[in-house]
């Protein structure tokens, strides 16, 4: 078998790409490779770009990446698009806006389909971040799905989350669901060339100022205006990202964030693995179907079955 861990560390894009596929497929072979890569993670800085469909996330990602490259930094991009719940297929179209980056050896772009995972990311996105981190990318940019306003998963994964709002797409403060404003470390008002941009900018700025008075927050999110297609305001956005990074590092918040991430991740891994093992055991010899028969015939309740299965498993 090929030594994918070594190859990823040596910078083989092919090994990184295949490992990512294994992670997406939940292929068990990925586990050993990830274990070996893990000591080499934690270096990359992770930026999330979220916002409604068509807000300009991909265009911004493209321009932001060029700006990072000009600063001599290498970049990994993870662009997530939704899978169809009906066919399981997906059209992953974000690369259209990033064409010129595809031949830059300092950039690695991976498109991911959600495969039924909710929250704006794919299930394996966190693992893919680690691969690109170990692969040596300095900054990792994650573009979320942008299907709605429930994409809060990104704040668990990203060090800095940029919320992209645009005039005319229904992005008004009133229409925003509770909790959405709170995910932003940086607000981006994109399509600032469009009518209504000034008003949206004023609205968001006012809201940020109000929040600063209402709650004790060590970081006040800046509001940055951009015209992504014209590459306007992107340097300012990048500056804001660097500012936020410095704030997180100096205040110790970055360490806290990463600690929290490690805790959640560990619990999630245990959860996933336990579930997988119990399910595999129950399905291997038809026991699950027998239990379902009992439940369907109302001879036993699912609560009882759950307790018995887990009790038995814990004793072993």
């Amino acid at each position, binding site marked *: 078998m090929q030594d994918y861990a070594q190859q990823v560390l040596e910078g083989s894009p092919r090994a990184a790409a295949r490992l*990512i596929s294994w992670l997406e497929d939940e292929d068990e072979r990925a586990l050993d490779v990830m274990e070996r890569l893990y000591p080499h993670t934690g270096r990359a800085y992770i930026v999330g770009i979220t916002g409604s469909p068509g807000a300009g996330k991909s265009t911004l990602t493209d321009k932001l990446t060029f700006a990072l490259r000009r600063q001599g930094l290498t970049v990994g991009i993870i662009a997530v698009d939704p899978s169809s719940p009906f*066919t399981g297929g997906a059209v992953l179209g974000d690369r*259209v806006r990033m*064409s010129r980056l595809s*031949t830059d050896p300092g950039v690695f772009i991976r498109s991911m389909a959600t495969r039924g995972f909710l929250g704006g990311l794919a299930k394996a996105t966190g693992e893919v971040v680690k691969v690109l981190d170990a692969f040596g990318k300095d900054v990792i940019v994650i573009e979320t799905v942008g299907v709605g306003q429930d994409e809060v998963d990104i704040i668990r994964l990203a060090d800095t989350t940029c919320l992209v709002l645009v005039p005319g797409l229904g992005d008004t403060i009133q229409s925003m669901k509770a909790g959405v404003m709170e995910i932003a470390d940086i607000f981006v008002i994109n399509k600032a060339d469009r009518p209504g941009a000034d008003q949206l900018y004023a609205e968001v700025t006012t809201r940020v100022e109000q929040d600063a008075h209402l709650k004790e927050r060590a970081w006040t999110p800046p509001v940055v205006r951009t015209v992504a297609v014209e590459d306007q305001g992107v340097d300012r956005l990048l500056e804001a990202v660097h500012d936020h990074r410095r704030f997180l590092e100096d205040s110790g918040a970055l360490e806290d964030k990463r600690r929290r991430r490690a805790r959640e991740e560990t619990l999630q891994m245990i959860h996933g693995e336990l579930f997988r093992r119990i399910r595999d055991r129950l399905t291997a010899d038809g026991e699950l179907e027998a239990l379902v028969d009992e439940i369907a015939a109302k001879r036993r309740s699912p609560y009882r079955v759950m307790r018995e299965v887990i009790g038995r498993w814990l004793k072993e």
Partner: protein
Amino acid sequence: MAQERKIKIIVAKPGLDGHDRGAKLLARIFAEAGMEVVYTGLRQTPEMIVETALQEDADVVGLSSLSGVHMYFFPRVVQLLREKGLDDVLVVGGGIIPSEDIPELKKAGVAEIFGPGTPTAKIVEFIKQNVRRRD
């Protein structure tokens, strides 16, 4: 239990003409067939297409050409894929391609060429039959 393996396909439109309706439609058809389709947009160079295939770990590259550049672009993509060690990636082509060009394209390593009237089910079936088994 591992997830069901999805076929990942790059749909690319090499050359300079500015029509992508056909390629977009193909992308949708493949997605409807349950594949994960990376749509790359217009004016792709062979280098861009092959780097994309590499990073995305694509099983299939689907090339669409209307502008008569296929005799250069299609074999070039195959050649670059081979240079990158991606020789198990299935390359198929479509668009407006004169039938007398087809033997040469196939000799160059393009697995199949689908003319404008080909039923889409046939294209999907061909891909499913001939795609690599990823290890």
